[in-house]
């Protein structure tokens, strides 16, 4: 499919536009809330909340008998919230550690959700079909009112976040200090977690319970590489989330049998990989490049130094030395040929015969300066 046709399609096709809108909004909300989760070392809490939402969805369906997204979302949010409180209280009241409590609640809730889902599937009513799309998400089934629900709930989350921006920032970086200033840390903590729960459940229909956690972690982890400022990180993370959501949802809607959730997650993972490698400052590729440049500089200086030593041992400065000698002296670091080429370009060495090299007068001066510098450096 060509790009132009694709873009044309996007603006013409009503369903595609819905899907793209929905995915973009949930990407933004999760990217923004995910920044706080990642900074507060709660990256995996999203995993727990999204898995734990499954029984909530099933129970909401059992109780209301409707598949309206608002009812199911409320059920999911309630279950996710209860799961979070349960994790906190297990950690507080027993010696079971956070990771175990998280894994326990996550898997038990999910198991209970499966029990309810299989129970619903055996029911004689015909309306139950489609609940299992919550496992892996199905963006194509997003209706206009689903997108509206995502938009309204996501908007509420973002408004709360802006209202309590200063407080959330403080409890994310220094909760003890916040407490000492008299902020109700515990209430703020619960509020922020509640916002995270809402952000996660609005994505369940599109991304699915199994992979929703990646939408929380990936955009934020990617954004973290680009900046050290919270405001910038949250913005960038929201943009990354939207890009991942839209591209994933569109790709999966273009071909048969590609589930939406995994595609969105792979798009987000690609953004993470790109950021880890190429983000300015923290990008690993730059570190690698810096290291290479330093190493080459050192190699070049070493060859210059070796030639200087040889020149001092001979009475006659212009006397050429075979490249083999330089290679032997450079044993352990190498790069002699490249260094000679660089030095020649800088006019510091000259080739006196075939494979024989000597310092030029400026080279002699430069090498002398370097050698004095090395001697002075402790």
């Amino acid at each position: 499919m060509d790009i132009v046709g694709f873009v044309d399609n996007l603006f013409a096709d009503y369903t595609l536009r819905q899907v793209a809108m929905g995915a973009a909004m949930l990407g933004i909300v999760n990217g923004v809330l995910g920044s706080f989760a990642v900074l507060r070392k709660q990256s995996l809490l999203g995993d727990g909340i999204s898995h734990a939402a499954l029984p909530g969805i099933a129970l909401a369906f059992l109780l209301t008998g409707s598949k309206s997204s608002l009812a199911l979302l409320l059920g999911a949010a309630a279950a996710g919230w209860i799961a979070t409180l349960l994790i906190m209280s297990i950690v507080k009241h027993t010696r079971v550690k956070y990771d175990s409590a998280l894994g326990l609640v996550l898997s038990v809730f999910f198991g209970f959700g499966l029990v309810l889902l299989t129970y619903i599937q055996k029911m004689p009513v015909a309306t139950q079909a489609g609940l299992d799309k919550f496992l892996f998400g199905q963006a194509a089934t997003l209706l206009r009112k689903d997108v509206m629900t995502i938009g309204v709930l996501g908007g509420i989350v973002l408004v709360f976040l802006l209202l309590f921006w200063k407080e959330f920032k403080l409890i994310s970086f220094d909760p003890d200090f916040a407490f000492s200033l008299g902020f109700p840390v515990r209430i703020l903590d619960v509020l922020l977690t509640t916002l995270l729960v809402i952000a996660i459940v609005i994505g369940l229909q599109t991304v699915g319970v199994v992979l929703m956690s990646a939408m929380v972690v990936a955009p934020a982890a990617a954004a973290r590489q680009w900046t050290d400022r919270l405001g910038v990180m949250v913005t960038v993370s929201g943009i990354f989330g939207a890009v991942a959501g839209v591209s994933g949802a569109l790709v999966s809607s273009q071909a048969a049998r590609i589930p939406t959730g995994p595609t969105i997650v792979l798009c987000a993972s690609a953004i993470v990989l790109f950021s880890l490698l190429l983000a300015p400052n923290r990008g690993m590729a730059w570190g690698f490049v810096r290291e290479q440049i330093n190493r080459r500089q050192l190699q070049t200086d070493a060859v210059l130094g070796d030639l200087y030593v040889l020149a001092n041992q001979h009475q006659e400065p212009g006397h050429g030395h075979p490249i083999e000698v330089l290679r032997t002296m450079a044993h352990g670091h190498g790069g002699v040929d490249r260094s000679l080429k660089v030095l020649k370009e800088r006019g510091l060495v000259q080739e006196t015969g075939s494979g024989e090299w000597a310092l030029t007068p400026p080279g002699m001066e430069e090498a002398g300066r370097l050698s004095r510098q090395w001697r002075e450096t402790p």
Partner: protein
Amino acid sequence: MTAPQIEIQLIASAVAVSCALPGCFLILRRMAMMSDAISHSILLGIAVGFFVIRDLTSPLLVLSAAMTGVVTVSLVEILTRTKRVREDAAIGLIFPALFSIGVILISRYAGDVHLDVDAVLLGELAFAPFNRLSALGYDIGPKGLYLMSGILLLNLFFILTFYKELKLSTFDAGLAGALGFSPVIIHYGLMTIVSITAVGAFDAVGSVLVVALMIAPPATAYLITDRLSYLLAASSLIGVISAISGYWVAHALDVSIAGSMATMTGVFFVATFLAAPDRGLVSIFVRRARQRVEFAQTMLLVHLYNHEGLPGVERENHMDHLHEHLRWEPGFAGRIVGAAQRKGSISRDGAFLLLTENGRETARQAMVG
């Protein structure tokens, strides 16, 4: 009980014990979420292995999938070591990516064969007895039972052989390293065991419920014991009980066996969380209440002792004054006075309170020490 029912319960029990044993070390080493990561990402190994081997119960498939588990662990470690992300975020980045690739591969290219995402994610124990193994023309039982028994034996062998090393490196990694036991080898050994177990159990109970069986029974046992050997035994037992009771609940309600087993592990955890001796919520509250009464009694005795024989004693050591002086509700004061009377520390003259010799001694001791 029919033969398939017995076989299902045997397989379920083997899965439960195989998961509980390495699970104990996972929760002690604070690596519980690693089981979540491994059990998800082995889907990729199973998908790739399946396209090559075309047999879901082949030991080769188990091996290739287990390799993916170990690769996941090392990827998480590599990512953490770059210092660009923290460990929890690294886990949350790696396994969804690998799992997503697996899901896409399966739903795109394996639609027409016996491997669909729901089955792998959720497992279907009810079908396990239909996949038989035969030797010399005789039917010798379901394949799944042999696979899980083999994995169970492997886990037992690993843990019994390296019990000392595992114990040491779990509780004091620094000392283990200093004594020359390589923490890396122990770590990767354990991770290999977890991966192999997850792959084997995957087929029976699905990936998320592997996590339930690996974490919930050990976490439950962790509430009632302080010894590693008891922890291993108790979590195996709890695992088996959860598995069998889960099976019967599923049977009665006609729902997912795996889901029901996971739910039962949760039920047992909550029951233990509430009722465990010493560390259970109930016994904590009972103990707190008892301590409150005891402390209040001591307060009362000290109060009476301080005012004994001084002017105003009639007013101070009066029932009605406790409310004013110690800020006690009248009901509470009545209970405490009653308890102290029963203990023989005080006696009452109408509403006037008198210390007995016994009570005077207690008050004196409380003030000294």
